């Protein structure tokens, strides 16, 4: 009888409690709930710290990426200039086209070399001869069997020199008294200069990896 009553009582009270047990946490002790809340707080704090750190990293990456882009843009434009200077890219611009005839076969390598120096002096930025040889810093003029060789490549008259720069200054330099025109005419040839708004220097020079020179910077 007492046992029955006890079970009855327990069931009644348990039922009363069960009817309220609709949450996941209702069955948990208060301490457990507080502990859970505490660990949630510290987890949130940890996560927030990680978020902060990652945001800093991202901002650093963004700004270094921006800085890099500026450096890259700068490098690209330097690269373009260097490619023109080294003759590794075709170039266009205003300038002159000079035609040298040599009916007496008397125009030698030295005359062409002197002509090139005149053009450089007049500010030529890109030069090619006979649309085949790009003239760069290391270009050398030689002769073999009465033929002119530029960087070892035979070129035959009439010599056609394309030069990019101030067309007026370049043309003045060629026809200046004592200049290239005078010298060629003294040798029995003719020189004609044509100024142009757009001169194409299309031949390319290929650069070899230096064997003996070490860059002192960069």
């Amino acid at each position, binding site marked *: *009888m007492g046992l029955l009553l*006890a079970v009855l009582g327990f069931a009644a009270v348990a039922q009363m409690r069960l009817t309220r047990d609709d949450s996941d946490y209702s069955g948990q002790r208060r301490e457990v709930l507080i502990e859970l809340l505490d660990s*949630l707080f510290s987890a949130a704090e940890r996560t*927030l710290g990680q978020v902060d750190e990652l945001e800093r990293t991202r901002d650093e990456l963004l700004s270094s990426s921006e800085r890099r882009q500026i450096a890259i843009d700068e490098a690209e434009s330097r690269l373009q200039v260097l490619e023109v200077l*080294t003759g590794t890219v075709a170039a*266009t611009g205003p300038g002159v086209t000079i035609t040298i005839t040599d009916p007496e076969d008397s125009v030698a390598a030295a005359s062409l070399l002197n002509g090139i120096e005149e053009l450089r002096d007049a*500010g030529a930025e890109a030069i090619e001869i006979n649309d085949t040889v790009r003239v760069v*810093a290391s270009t*050398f003029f030689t002769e073999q069997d009465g033929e002119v060789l530029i960087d070892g490549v035979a070129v035959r008259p009439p010599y056609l020199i394309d030069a990019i720069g101030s067309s007026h200054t370049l043309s003045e330099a060629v026809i200046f008294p004592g200049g290239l025109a005078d010298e060629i005419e003294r040798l029995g040839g003719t020189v004609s200069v044509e100024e142009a708004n757009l001169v194409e220097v299309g031949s390319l020079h290929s650069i070899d990896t230096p064997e003996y020179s070490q860059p002192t910077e*960069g």
Partner: protein
Amino acid sequence: MTHLPGGLREDGPDASEAPHIGLLTQVMTQTLDQDYAAVARRRDPQVPDPSPRWRIGALSVLLVFGLMLGVSALTTDQEQPLIAAERAELIEQIEAGQSKLADQQQQLAALSDEVARMQSRLAAELTDDRLLSNRLTALGVAAGTIGVTGPGVVVTVDDARYTGEESGGVVLDTDLQLLVNGLWEAGAEAVSIDDHRLTSLTSIRLAGEAITVDYRSLAPPYVIEATGDPDTMPARLLETRGGQFWLDLKTNYGVQFEIVAKSQVSIPADLRDHLLYAAPRRAT
């Protein structure tokens, strides 16, 4: 039935909850004790059979139990709002905290992805940058915008000691042009005259009485330095037309012409890397 009180202590031995649990426990325990007592009495032969008095007692126990149960239920219901409010608040905080943490973790995951992507892109870019940097260096060395050092030769030339009325003993711009032309032919990698780097823009000209290199007037003696194979360059230079020409100048006009192989020469940079007229034309 000793587990009964424990089973009811689901909320822990908290002081605020003690009263009604204590009450229930008391009800249960008392009821049991009385039951046991009754059973014990029945088994005791010296105790007479239960009389109507016992029935009245049992009835009153039942009554008391019903009362207790009612009171207990009432009490539980009355205390419920206080405890429930606290619990509800706790649970609410937990749920809010969990949803906030989930948001933060999502943000963290997104950020982590973004940073990882940026870093791998940066790593790829670094390779590109290294290639670009190498190309800039190679082109800079060839163009003369980067200084170089290495083995090579030093060629020193000067006007003849006694230059009379015949001008053959004076070094001319064309003489230097031929010498430099010979050096390139002999395999020079970089050349300077009096520490002026020769580039595709540099001219060797005569302006007035002085030789100019890159528009700067020089005075003799002229020191021409070139990087290249120090073992072969001197001989190769002498074989060139420029070298032959200079040997002739030395023999017939008394100009100074001296070639010395060096384990190290330094050729400075020409910093002019700005073009006014020429633009690259790329294949389209």
